[in-house]
């Protein structure tokens, strides 16, 4: 039995200890906002926050989140109030197919939570682990910079 706090509410799931958090979220709890892309922490599609820090849920066994706080894309916005990054993402028309974007947004949110004014190099370094096959990298960077400049709250 794994017990942790998911998006502010306690949950209890009866699963194998080594089941990656990604599959607990997607298949046991039907929280499908967090995506599967590679299973080897190479692509970043599975990014969630563990106690506020971005992790790759596809290689994090759920036993590792026992008693901790997990935040997924579904709770990044506060009810109807979008996160500044989500507003910027929309203003820049960032998504194309959109499949990688949950992970991109969660990774960017984690960056800004710890470093509200990153340089371009720091943005690149932080976002390097998130692959996009549709080529939205330039717009992602524009959106992050816009939030850093305070254009979205």
């Amino acid at each position, binding site marked *: 039995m794994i017990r942790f706090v998911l998006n502010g509410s306690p949950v209890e799931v009866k699963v194998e200890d080594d089941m990656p958090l990604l599959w607990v979220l997607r298949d046991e709890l*039907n929280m499908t906002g967090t*995506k599967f892309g590679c299973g080897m922490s190479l692509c970043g599609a599975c990014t969630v926050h563990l106690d506020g820090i971005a992790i790759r849920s596809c290689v994090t066994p759920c036993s590792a989140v026992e008693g901790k706080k997990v935040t997924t894309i579904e709770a990044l916005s506060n009810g109807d109030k*979008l996160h500044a990054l989500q507003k910027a993402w929309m203003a820049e028309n960032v998504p*194309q*197919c959109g*499949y990688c974007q949950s992970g991109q947004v969660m990774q960017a949110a984690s960056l800004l939570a710890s470093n509200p004014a990153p340089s371009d190099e720091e943005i690149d370094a932080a976002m390097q682990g998130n692959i996009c096959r*549709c080529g939205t990298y330039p717009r992602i960077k524009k959106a992050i910079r816009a939030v850093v400049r305070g254009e979205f709250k």
Partner: protein
Amino acid sequence: MSSNRRDFLRVSALAGAALILEFHLPALAEANSLSIEPNAWIKVTSEGRYVFILDRAEMGQGVMTALPILLAEEFDIDPKKLEVENAPADTRYSNADLHMQITGGSTSVHASWLPLRNAGASARQLFIDAAALKWGCDAKLCTTNDGTVIGPDQKKIAYHQLIDFALKCKVKEAPLKDPKGFKFIGRVNERRENLVKVTGRATYGIDVRVDNVCVAMVLRAPCLGAKLKGFRADKIKSVRGFVGAFRISTGVAVVTKNTWLAKKARELLEVDWEIPAELQSSEGIRQQALREAKHRGSEVFRRGNFLKGFEGAEEQIEVVYECPYLSHSTMEPQNCTANVTENFCEVWAPTQSPALAHKVCRDVTGFDADKIRVNTTYLGGGFGRRLAQDYVREAVEISQAAGVPVRVQWTREDDMQYDLYRPCSYHVLRGGVSANNAVAWSHHVITQSIMSDLLPEWAPEMLMPNWMPAGMRNILGAGIGTVAPALMSDPTAFEGAGEDVAYAIDNISVTYSKLTTGVPVGFWRSVGHSYTGFVVESFIDELAHMAKVDAVEFRVKLLSQNPELRETLLQASHAAGWANPLPPNCFRGVAAHSSFRSHAATVAEVQITGDSFKVTRIVTAIQCGRVINPDMVRAQIESATIFALSAALYGEITWNEGRVQQSNFHNQPVLRTSECPQIDVVLVKSDSAPTGVGEPGVPPVAPAVANAIFKGSGKRLRTLPLRLGT
């Protein structure tokens, strides 16, 4: 008669003869609710819902935003007021360019341009006629504004309040707007589905959850040609939720309740395979190409007299170009959910073709067409991968065998190793230069034929008239499917290199030899152009260098017969500042290529230090007719650039002992954000009907980069991926 018009008339004849009426029997709150479907793409309800039926797959290219606008413009309603629903599998939604319900070939906007506008215009006229009937006035005295009919004396009524009168009127053709009056086309940039995609609420194939759905993984052939002999699932019984193991057409499927457990279960399968004596390899395939290269191949295109022109040229060159197999690597690995009961089959798939998915369901289950439902989800990437329906076939077979609803889930390794690859190709080129001009060009293209593999499956859907019953179409189509590949030369194999070579060179000879390797191949973003663009644009650059003429100038002179491509090239070189000085160690290369009815030219700036290079800037100009959503066209060119660059720098699928050697993003890398160059896009103004956008930005990228590398290093790279150091 264009097929656009033919389809429209068929739809409106149906509509005129028997207007589709849905009279909703009241659920308490909806007493006296009416709805009307003036055509296949718009449904209006008396509660004020305007529902657009989207008949193309949204895979990031923007059809969900662009297509409703085409109808809304002529219907005269703000596209924001339209809800969008995905179309079922239905012959009314056949793509006018591709002759079946399919999304691909960069055709969606081009093929829908007139049918959707006509549908909007005739629907608007219907409501005008309805208002005129209601008010007892002449319809010519009425006009519209944003979903409201305005009559004499400034009477106003919304379309959805006129349904009862509209049902008494006939749908008829109506004139289209003068483009000068467009309110939305060319002006709307916001993507319709931004909100769901930034909040994780978009449902992709992998996200579909139906009641009691189980999850399956398939253990497939360990090498090309391996045959399944038998299997044992004894060890799997210990895996929680294990439903069963089943033999299917592609291998052995294990079914459990959770993706992770399905993966575990698959690892515990014991399977016996019969391995063929000879196993395919990249080296073996290359040897096959070398053997074909000794022959001329079959003629594709000829102009003038190549041998005469070549032998008489001041300078001659003969070289070989090679391009590898490429994987699609959509971000969302392949998957499909199927629920097959005794008499009904329903699937949910991230498919580019509901028509082909529907056919696969019929083929596997034997059910009649009306006992099958295909639901198209968002696609986490397409790139041509989802034109094949292999994941649908697997899901239907498994659900049928297991008797439960099943989502078949591919891992990234499955996705990379059981793809339908962009074919590898081998090219022999000879060129002659005299008086600073190209005077002779021969190109022998050696590659696999995609259509040979696909035609037997596609022919029934493509070649049979829409009115023919499905069973008959299958029988006749199968006959055509077996005969046709032998008769026809697959045009996609040498598109961009044959008659459609843009350059007015006096003496041209293009020939083709077909490779047969057993490797499954399919359509990859820009198809044949993805390698012919590289080869043609690199080789013309070689000739320009031999002729000692500037790369842009050389091409411009030879584009006398192609004013659109020439103009596009000039705009790209101008935007890039072709003649301007560059920082030290930076060099420029150019490429220009027409594909999918559009024209694209790219200037690449590359920084070279010793044996390494970095692409720092890409400038692409595209001429694609009238643009519906300018920012989205820019986004598509950014997309094509990064997709093409990824392939140019890293793309290579290799074979050894019948197996693909790459498996995930560590050994088949893709471009990441820090490697992304500055990308500048120029939209060449045009009032022509819209042409392709999704693919044309791909072909010029690799050659522009290779040409820049030559400029800077003196090394001509004739193979992909581009590697400067040996």
